[in-house]
């Protein structure tokens, strides 16, 4: 019977293909959006572990987390290291990692920080950063690069690189001071993979002789060896990651910082900022999801309409089958099998399309935010969604199937 059904489908190949395309794309759209959203959330949430608070200039918490952790957007203001030191002295604070942002290298963000960064920052739960080669920076000209920077630019330990002023690749290069790669990090699937790390002092050094974004004096005219290292410690930084002595102090420490009288600073709990971000995105996502389900509904209606409209032209075919002994139930089953086959083919194609679109989206997301999406064929939840769609298709197909059943019972086959 399957052979007859398959031949019947082949005989209406154009409308069937159109219905399959509609169903496949609508299912794939629903699953892809859902998958990318889930994976993005997971990727973002696992990107910054071990940090209790992000300290930065007063303003939007989401913005602060986006540009400090995910390198998205540009910092608008700095905070003074004086303030950081003062906050660090607070008994709630166990450690602080200052970071200064602004420069880049071949499109990859440069993060200036202290070597402790590599010990304190965690990812994917509680995993530590580790070096595939080399070590953290020690000298002024040492630089540590993420795994993606190394693989995409083909860098090795000891390679020399120059840093570009600003985040644009067309910015002026700090070509009077070469950094040398001292360490390459193992992959993390986080923005760390796409970052270039230098010391705060090294970063300060390359900006000596710069004013308002323009180079006034070249470092070639300065005897760097004569500058004491402590004098290169910057007066301002972009932000700082803070670790607290106890999680119980999270809100007390946060309140203390937000009410800090000497400078307009704020403390953001990364998880809370991200939750706010997801909640903002969530309403758009909800509307999008509704539209997706509507598209799927319309595609299913299209499938049923195609089957219904073909019934009249198939009267003779059904009569012949009835004449050779097919029961009304068998004829109705054939209609059901036909729509089920269309649904199953669409499902299989949707899974393939989801895989393909996720692969493309994963690449884009990694390029954009450094967040890695795990590529899988299909999860249990996604499979459940597909089964629900298939059951909806089955229920919808009962309309033409019932019609065939009733007609077969009511009519003779010779007229």
């Amino acid at each position, binding site marked *: *019977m399957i*052979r*007859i059904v398959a*031949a*019947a489908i*082949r*005989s209406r190949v154009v409308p069937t293909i159109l219905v399959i395309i509609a169903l496949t794309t609508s299912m794939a759209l629903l699953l892809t959006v859902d998958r990318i959203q889930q994976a993005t959330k997971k990727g973002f949430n696992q990107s910054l572990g071990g940090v209790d608070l992000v300290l930065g200039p007063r303003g939007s918490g989401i913005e602060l987390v986006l540009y400090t952790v995910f390198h998205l957007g540009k910092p608008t203001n700095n905070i003074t290291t004086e303030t950081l030191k003062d906050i660090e002295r607070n008994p709630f604070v166990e450690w602080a990692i200052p970071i200064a942002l602004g420069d880049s290298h071949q499109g990859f963000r440069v993060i200036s920080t202290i070597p402790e960064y590599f010990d304190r920052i965690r990812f994917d739960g509680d995993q530590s950063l580790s070096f595939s080669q080399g070590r953290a920076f020690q000298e002024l000209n040492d630089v540590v690069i993420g795994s993606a920077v190394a693989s995409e630019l083909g860098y090795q330990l000891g390679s020399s690189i120059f840093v570009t002023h600003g985040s644009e690749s067309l910015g002026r290069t700090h070509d009077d001071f070469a950094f040398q790669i001292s360490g390459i990090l193992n992959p993390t699937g986080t923005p760390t993979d796409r970052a270039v790390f230098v010391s705060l002092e090294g970063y300060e050094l390359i900006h000596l002789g710069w004013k308002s974004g323009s180079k006034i004096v070249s470092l070639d005219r300065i005897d760097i060896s004569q500058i004491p290292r402590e004098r290169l410690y910057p007066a301002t930084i972009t932000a700082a990651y803070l670790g607290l002595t106890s999680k119980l102090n999270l809100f007390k420490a946060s309140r203390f910082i937000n009410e800090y009288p000497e400078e307009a600073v704020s403390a953001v709990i990364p998880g809370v900022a991200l939750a706010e971000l997801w909640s903002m995105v969530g309403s758009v996502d909800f509307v999008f999801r509704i539209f997706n389900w509507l598209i799927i509904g319309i595609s299913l209606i299209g499938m049923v309409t195609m089957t219904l409209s073909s019934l009249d032209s198939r009267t*003779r*075919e059904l*009569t*012949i*089958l*009835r*004449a*050779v*002994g*097919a*029961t009304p*139930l*068998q004829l109705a089953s054939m209609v059901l099998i036909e729509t089920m086959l269309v649904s199953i083919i669409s499902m299989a194609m949707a899974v393939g399309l989801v895989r393909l679109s996720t692969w493309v989206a994963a690449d884009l997301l990694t390029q954009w935010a450094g967040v890695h999406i795990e590529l899988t064929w299909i999860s249990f939840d996604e499979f459940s969604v597909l089964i629900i769609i298939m059951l909806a298709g089955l229920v919808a197909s009962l309309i033409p199937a019932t019609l065939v059943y009733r007609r077969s*019972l009511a*009519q*003779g*086959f*010779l*007229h």
Partner: protein
Amino acid sequence: MILETSALTYAYRSGKHLRFPDLKIDAGEKVLLIGPSGSGKSSLLNLIAGVLPLQTGSISLKKFQYNQLSPRSLDTIRADHIGVIFQSFNLIPYLSGFENARIGLQFSTQRRARVDRPREVIKRLATQLGLTTDLLDRKPTELSIGQQQRIAAIRALIGQPELVIADEPTSALDPEATTLFMNQLKDSINPQTQAVVVVSHNPSIIPLFDRVIRLDNPQ
């Protein structure tokens, strides 16, 4: 005895009431049911095929009494014991001639059991019916009406159902082709086990049959 009907009548909702003569058809018989349009020829075949529900009277095919059978059982009886040839548009358009012929076995375990090698049997029947076997691979749209009717005849004959019923099977054929087709059909049945009942309004085919039964229900 293959088929026996008694006191059959059928009333349509429109009020039309049909009475049918009693039939007794033995193996090897070729019977023509003749009558004008509206005389109930097709209704009688529908009743014999078990597609229209029995209202009054009785039908027995071999050992089976229709009034004791469920609609589902009647479908099985039809699949196992009756081959049907329609007036025209006999074939499923998207299947090849061979696949159309083979459908005769699709819903019957008994007929399937009687056929070891369907392809060979279909080829043999095709040859008996004057059809070259290469035509079996063609789709109905690539065949003439006469060729389509022959494939429909193969479908009705394959697996040797006891009763072959045909509703105006030659109406689309010219007189010469009609005679040829009817003779080939008659020659293809097993006279020990099978019988043919043909319905027609064309008196010119009367000489081709052993027995003629006239239906005279008013229009």
